[in-house]
């Protein structure tokens, strides 16, 4: 049984800059969007990889950060009331007998859409996996890449790996309820917020957290349950008894389920035409970094252009009998009304 069933004109997969701008262009044509993204917030790569890095090639902005661009796009699409579904990944996408597309997420939410727009960039963000033999067998049982329920970690012997905010925040939050906490990092410098680093050092000084400068070398255990984590440090290899391992090496992108939807691919990118940016399946469009066509440049501005053309093609699918009048936001009172700026 599905958790939720949502009917909509358009589902946009990916809430990065190009997915967000697609909402604007589709909105001008009166099309309503639901957006699905694996991250917990909008912005895609701009939010996850380089929120503070400057971007210099957005037309009209001599310099803008990834986060500012995201914030501006969110403001720009606000009049169209897009609905966001974060922390969700689309597992399957199929065309139904009635011509609509059925999408099912990893939470078993179901979406029925007339048109699907894939704006998934480099794919979905997934945790980086330490190169430890057989680690897959323990994942989801005693090795976790995120903390969903803190209770899972109560009275456990924890090994946490990493030097960023996730590693430090969870070290601080779980230390009071875990049986023991060992924090492992490759060097005695941490990029996490200084306040958390100080707090961690106090816990280490008080004997409440064990800090090891080193790296994870191997796991011991059986049937998915670890019993020890082997660590490589300057003093050689040491085994730390452990019942839970939390590696925090950040996220990286992976094409994921998109590869299984029967779309024509070119080297892991979705092949599209350059008039409509439609994939090999009618009604499924691909825009931004995830598509491929001759001469493609992976630039945000290319994705914006693709979004505009895609939107007109999508409108013709959804409202084939409606005549589309091409209009400018500067002069069209109709468009200004939609944007909520008409006098």
């Amino acid at each position: 049984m599905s958790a939720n069933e949502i009917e909509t004109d358009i589902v946009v997969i990916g809430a990065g800059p190009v997915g967000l701008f697609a909402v604007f262009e589709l909105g001008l044509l009166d099309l309503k969007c639901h957006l699905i993204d694996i991250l917990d917030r909008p912005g895609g790569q701009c939010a996850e990889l380089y929120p503070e890095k400057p971007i210099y090639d957005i037309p009209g902005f001599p310099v803008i950060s990834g986060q500012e661009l995201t914030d501006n796009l969110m403001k720009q699409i606000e009049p169209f009331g897009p609905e966001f579904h974060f922390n969700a990944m689309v597992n399957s996408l199929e065309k139904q007998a009635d011509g609509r597309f059925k999408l099912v997420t990893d939470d078993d939410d179901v979406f029925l859409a007339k048109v699907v727009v894939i704006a998934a960039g480099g794919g979905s963000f997934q945790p980086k996996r330490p190169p430890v033999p057989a680690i897959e067998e323990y994942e989801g049982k005693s090795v976790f890449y995120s903390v969903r329920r803190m209770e899972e970690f109560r009275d456990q012997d924890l090994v946490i790996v990493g030097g960023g905010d996730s590693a430090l925040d969870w070290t601080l939050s779980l230390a009071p309820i875990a049986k023991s906490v060992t924090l492992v990092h490759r060097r005695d410098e941490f990029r996490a917020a200084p306040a958390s680093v100080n707090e961690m050092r106090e816990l280490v000084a008080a004997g409440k957290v064990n800090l090891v400068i080193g790296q994870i070398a191997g796991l011991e255990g059986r049937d998915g349950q670890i019993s020890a984590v082997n660590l490589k440090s300057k003093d050689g290899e040491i085994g730390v008894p452990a019942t839970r391992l939390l590696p925090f090496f950040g996220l990286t992108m992976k094409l994921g389920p998109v590869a299984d939807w029967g779309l024509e691919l070119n080297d892991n990118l979705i092949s599209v035409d350059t008039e409509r940016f439609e994939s090999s399946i009618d009604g499924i469009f691909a825009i931004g970094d995830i598509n491929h066509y001759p001469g493609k440049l992976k630039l945000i501005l290319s994705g914006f252009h693709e979004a505009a053309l895609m939107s007109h093609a999508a409108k013709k699918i959804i409202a084939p009998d409606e005549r589309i009048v091409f209009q400018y936001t500067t002069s069209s009172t109709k468009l200004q009304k939609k944007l909520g700026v008409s006098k």
Partner: protein
Amino acid sequence: MKVLVTDHDGNEHELEALEGWRVMEVIRDWGLEIKAECGGACACATCHVFVDENWVEKLEGATSEEEDMLDTVPDVQLNSRLSCQILMSDDLDGLKVTLAPSSRTEDAAA
């Protein structure tokens, strides 16, 4: 000038490089498998390479920004560098690097 790159299958390639190019860009331009998902912004660590021991000392040291990103490389070693942070110059003609597993395009959990 040249860069010698050992790929994920262990094959060595001699790649023609241009002054001022990032080693990541040379590797990508010649079509070897390298993820480099942030495009050279020192923001993702997926252009990770192991530098040949004879060359480690000849490179400029990693900035603290690069060190921070190397923290997110699960298979980091003492000779680990991000290839987007190495700029080609005459001094580096003949540089030898090996692509690290974490620079593969489909390397992720789940």
